[in-house]
């Protein structure tokens, strides 16, 4: 199954706020693994967005409904398959890429139903991760990666460098934003060592253009 998302802490992560700032007013937004629907509710409320969510957890789905966020309870690939090409301006995947069974397929679908994808993920190249494995000889376990090897939902980790290479091979235009392990905004300098979280905005082909209104989302 794809997209085992955990409930996300409300407004705790800066990447939430950053993602919000990346979405244009009135945009048609699909949030994959939308959790309790907080991000979408904010986008709907504050930016007049047309928000839709996909969430596999039944309890979190209920919270979306109570917030008034239209949500599809189920697998994200299946949920996306119901949409027409280009139905969204933006498709968001926050901190969940590493939990999907088939990341290339997920990204491909995101860029089919949406014109732009915003993907945030924990950077496995962060120095603390490297040190824990290199010197400690154990699987990294820290504030970024709070799981043990036996209970982690993460199955496809990557580093900033890995994801850049992926984008290049797939010929995807990208914009990068980096956050420290304490969610402070970072420069791109030595990002693969310093970034705890990376946020990539990607599009097919050419470099990113300013967002424009799209077709209605469903």
């Amino acid at each position: 199954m794809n997209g085992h998302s955990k409930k996300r802490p409300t407004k705790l992560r800066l990447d939430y706020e950053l993602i919000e700032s990346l979405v244009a007013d009135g945009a048609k937004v699909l949030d994959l693994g939308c959790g309790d629907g907080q991000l979408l509710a904010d986008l709907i409320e504050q930016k007049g967005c047309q928000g839709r969510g996909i969430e596999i957890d039944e309890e979190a789905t209920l919270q979306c409904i109570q917030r008034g966020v239209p949500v599809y309870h189920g697998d994200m690939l299946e949920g996306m398959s119901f949409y027409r090409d280009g139905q969204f301006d933006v498709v968001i995947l926050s901190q969940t890429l590493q939990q999907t069974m088939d990341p290339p397929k997920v990204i491909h679908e995101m860029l089919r139903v949406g014109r732009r994808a915003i993907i945030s993920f924990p950077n496995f190249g962060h120095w603390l991760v490297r040190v824990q494995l290199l010197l400690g000889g154990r699987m990294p376990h820290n504030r970024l990666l709070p799981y043990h090897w036996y209970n982690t939902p993460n199955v496809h980790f990557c580093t900033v460098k890995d994801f850049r290479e992926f984008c290049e091979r797939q010929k995807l235009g990208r914009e990068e934003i980096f956050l420290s392990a304490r969610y402070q905004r970072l420069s791109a300098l030595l990002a693969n060592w310093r970034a705890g979280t990376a946020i990539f905005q990607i599009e097919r082909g050419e470099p990113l253009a300013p967002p424009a209104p799209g077709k209605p989302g469903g």
Partner: protein
Amino acid sequence: MGACFARYHNVSIDDEVPISDESRLGGRESVGLVQTQTFTFAAPPGELELECGQKLGPITLAYETCGELSAARDNAVLICHALSGDAHVAGYHAPDDRKPGWWDLFIGPGKAIDTTKYFVICSNIIGGCKGSTGPSSVNPATGRPWGLKFPMVTISDMVRAEAALLDHLGIERLLTVTGGSMGGFQALEWAVRYPERVASAIPIATAARLSAQGIAFNEVGRQAIMADPNWQGGDYDGKQGPLSGLAIARMIGHITYLSDEQMHAKFGRRLQDRERFGYGFATEFEVESYLRYQGDSFVRRFDANSYLYITKSMDYFDLPARCGSLVEAFENVRAEFLVVSISSDWLFPTYQSKEIVKALKANGIPTTFVELDSPYGHDAFFLPNERLSATIAGFLANVLRRGRERAGRGSANP
């Protein structure tokens, strides 16, 4: 027979749902006493032209309401019942009623459909036998019950009759229309047929068309009725009627409403009131006893010809075929949707709800989909379910809030 089924009075699915103290008459979550009312329309020459081409009129609908219609008339909720349901959706008819209306678990002050906020309407479908015009009603042309001379009615016809009732009640637009199973057919039909009159729809455990499997079970039920010598071609008025045929039809139905897991949990292979096999054909297993009880109690409250007509109306329901495709069927839909399926439902499996969701999403219609994790099979929506209650309550509250915000903006900026 009664004695050997006595144990089951506390466990069967639709008859014996536990009633909380709050939901008893006088309890703070009960709508209290309700009365069935009737509305008659389509008197000749203004008969309703049915989908089959025949005309029907006058038509009487039995209906009940609870809660109060708001001044803006924006809080009306139409509940559509399933195959064997009726207008008595919540509350009690009399102080000594053993049980409340069929969806009382979800309707009342503080419940999922909160009658302090919403005005609830439920009518018996045409073709039914609970006060609305159906095959057991008197044919004005002959002065005798219609029997099989009653014209075939479809889900569309039922919904058009419901629309006439809403006109009569002065309700232009529904906050929501909801129903499970065949009630879900009506909810979908409403959203498609009257896009301007439906702000939201909540189809539960349903489909956009009845599957071959569903038609098959319906046909076996009908054959059981029609093979009963007491059916007499449908002309059994004043006589006993096809009681054993109808009971068998109900037994078959009940199998499809449960799940393998639940049958195992509830009955297993346990024997009823005996220690060992009798090596005969008396009722021995608990599951047999349960089905016999369901069949026997059903014939006391339901008309066999109505069973034939209503199951047939389900068989005919096919939105995609009627409109070219389901995506096209939903092209003009204006309502937002909450689609609910039940994980263990094999009569209306989840994939059939997903087909609805897919076609809605392809049309850009705001759609929420929830698959309820429940072991109880198709009939789970008749059982207590906190999650279903909270889901419906949350969805409705937001539909009402948004509708009122829009109306407020509309009046501020005419």
